[in-house]
């Protein structure tokens, strides 16, 4: 499906643009989650085959001819775990932000100069 592939790329680019231009730490994490969604859409649409159905072989799919009737199961399996891991990673980043805010009382990237050169 070419449209969903384009949609995924656009989301990825918008997310990266947001991550690069925004100063607020929480906005950067929002940009990260948009990039996450975009990547997942790209991977799933690479696995899509035109006119075929989901890889769950119940009564509406012919069991004898199942190999020619279903889409690729591997990208689905990959993305499924990636979404859960993405949630945990987002939680970890946000707790870093809470910790930083409790220390410095600021959410702006400009106020964190320790690692600048």
């Amino acid at each position: 499906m070419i449209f969903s592939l384009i949609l995924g790329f656009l989301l990825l680019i918008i997310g990266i643009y947001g991550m690069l231009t925004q100063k607020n730490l929480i906005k950067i994490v929002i940009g990260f989650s948009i990039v996450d969604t975009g990547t997942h859409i790209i991977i799933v649409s690479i696995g899509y085959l035109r006119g075929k159905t989901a890889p769950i072989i119940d009564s509406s799919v012919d069991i004898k001819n199942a190999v020619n009737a279903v889409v690729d199961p591997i990208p689905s399996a990959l993305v499924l775990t990636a979404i859960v891991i993405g949630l945990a990673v987002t939680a970890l980043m946000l707790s870093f932000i809470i910790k930083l805010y409790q220390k410095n009382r600021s959410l702006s990237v400009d106020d964190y100069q320790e690692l600048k050169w």
Partner: protein
Amino acid sequence: MISIIIIVLGIIMILAAFLAIRLKNLLSAIISAGVISLLASVIYLLLAAPDVAMTEAAIGSGLTTIIFIFTLKKIRKGDLDD
């Protein structure tokens, strides 16, 4: 039919992504980011991946939004602390 739904939802998702980047109010930005994952699960279903759609529906529309809101809450309370 599938192409029409994907195009309309895709335009909405891209606009929502722009809003999430652009809006000044953090809570509004989080709501816009929620719209993206909400509609993403419909798109996964159209791409014949119901497992992914269910995961995204459970995590994207609920938990991600809530974790962001909890962060905002901690920051607001920290503001009022001293």
